[in-house]
C-alpha cells in the first residue's frame, strides 16, 4: 500500500518536474509545478511530516503559485528560441544533470549508513504534527523562526522596490529605451 502511494507520489512529483522543464509555455510550467508540489506533499505525508505537507499545499501550491500565475499572465507568453546560442550547452546540460543524479545516487546508495535501507525507526505518535513542530521551532529554532520573518519582510520590501509604484521619470526612461 505504502509502495503504491510512494510510486504514485513519485511519478507525480517527477512528472511535474519534467513537465516544468519540458513545457514550452511558462503558464503550463507553472501548473505543472503545482502538480509537482502537491505530489510532494503526498510524499511528505508518507514520511510522517503532516505539518510540512500541509504547509506545502497551503503556502506553496496555494499562495506562491498564485503569484507565479499573476506574473506569468502579466508578462505574457514568452517565446523561447529553439536555437541554442551557447556552444556545448545543449550537450553538456543533460550530461551534467545526469552526472549530478548519478553522483548523488551513489552517495545515497553507496553510503554505509544502515538506517538508509529501512523505513526508519518507529516514531512516537505526533511526530510531525503541528504541535511537535511548533515546539521544536520555538524551543530550538527560535532564531531561525525570527529570522525567517525578517526575511519575509525584507523580501516584501524588495518586491516593492522592484515591482512597486512607478516613480517619476521611469516612463520617460522606458520610452527612451524603446524609441
Amino acid at each position: 500500500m505504502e509502495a503504491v502511494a510512494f510510486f504514485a507520489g513519485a511519478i507525480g512529483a517527477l512528472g511535474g518536474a519534467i513537465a516544468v522543464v519540458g513545457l514550452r509555455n511558462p503558464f503550463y510550467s507553472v501548473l505543472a509545478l503545482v502538480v509537482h508540489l502537491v505530489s510532494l506533499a503526498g510524499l511528505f505525508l508518507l514520511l510522517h511530516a503532516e505539518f510540512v505537507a500541509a504547509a506545502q499545499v497551503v503556502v506553496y501550491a496555494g499562495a506562491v503559485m498564485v503569484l507565479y500565475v499573476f506574473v506569468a499572465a502579466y508578462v505574457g507568453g514568452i517565446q523561447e528560441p529553439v536555437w541554442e546560442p551557447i556552444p556545448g550547452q545543449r550537450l553538456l546540460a543533460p550530461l551534467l544533470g545526469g552526472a549530478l543524479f548519478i553522483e548523488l545516487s551513489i552517495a545515497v546508495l553507496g553510503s554505509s549508513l544502515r538506517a538508509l535501507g529501512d523505513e526508519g525507526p518507529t516514531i512516537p505518535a505526533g511526530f510531525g504534527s503541528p504541535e511537535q513542530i511548533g515546539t521544536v521551532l520555538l524551543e530550538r529554532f527560535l532564531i531561525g523562526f525570527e529570522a525567517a520573518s525578517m526575511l519575509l519582510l525584507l523580501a516584501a520590501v524588495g518586491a516593492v522596490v522592484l515591482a512597486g509604484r512607478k516613480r517619476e521619470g521611469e516612463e520617460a526612461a522606458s520610452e527612451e529605451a524603446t524609441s
Partner: protein
Amino acid sequence: MAVEWYLVLSALLFAVGAGGVLIRRSPLVILLCLELMLNAGNLALVAFSRMLGNADGQVFALVVMVVAACEVVVGLGLIVAIYRRRLPLNVDELRGLRG
C-alpha cells in the same frame, strides 16, 4: 518504503531542476526550476528527518519553504521590473555584462 527511495527520487528531482536551469531561457521558468531544486532539498530533509526520527529536518524544511517563497517574490519582482524596463525576458539576451 526504504528512505533510500525517497532520497534517490530527491536526487532525480534535484538533477531535473538543475538541468532545467541550464536549458531554459525564460527567467520565469528558471525560477520554477530553482523551486524544483529547493523542493528536492526539502524532500531529502524530510526523508532524513524520518530516518533519524528527529523533527529538526522538518523544521528545516519549513524554513526552506519560507526562503523559497522569498526568492520567488524577489525573482518575480525582478521579472516585472525587467519587463517594465522593456528588456527581453530571455536570460540569453541579458548579457551586457561579460568578458
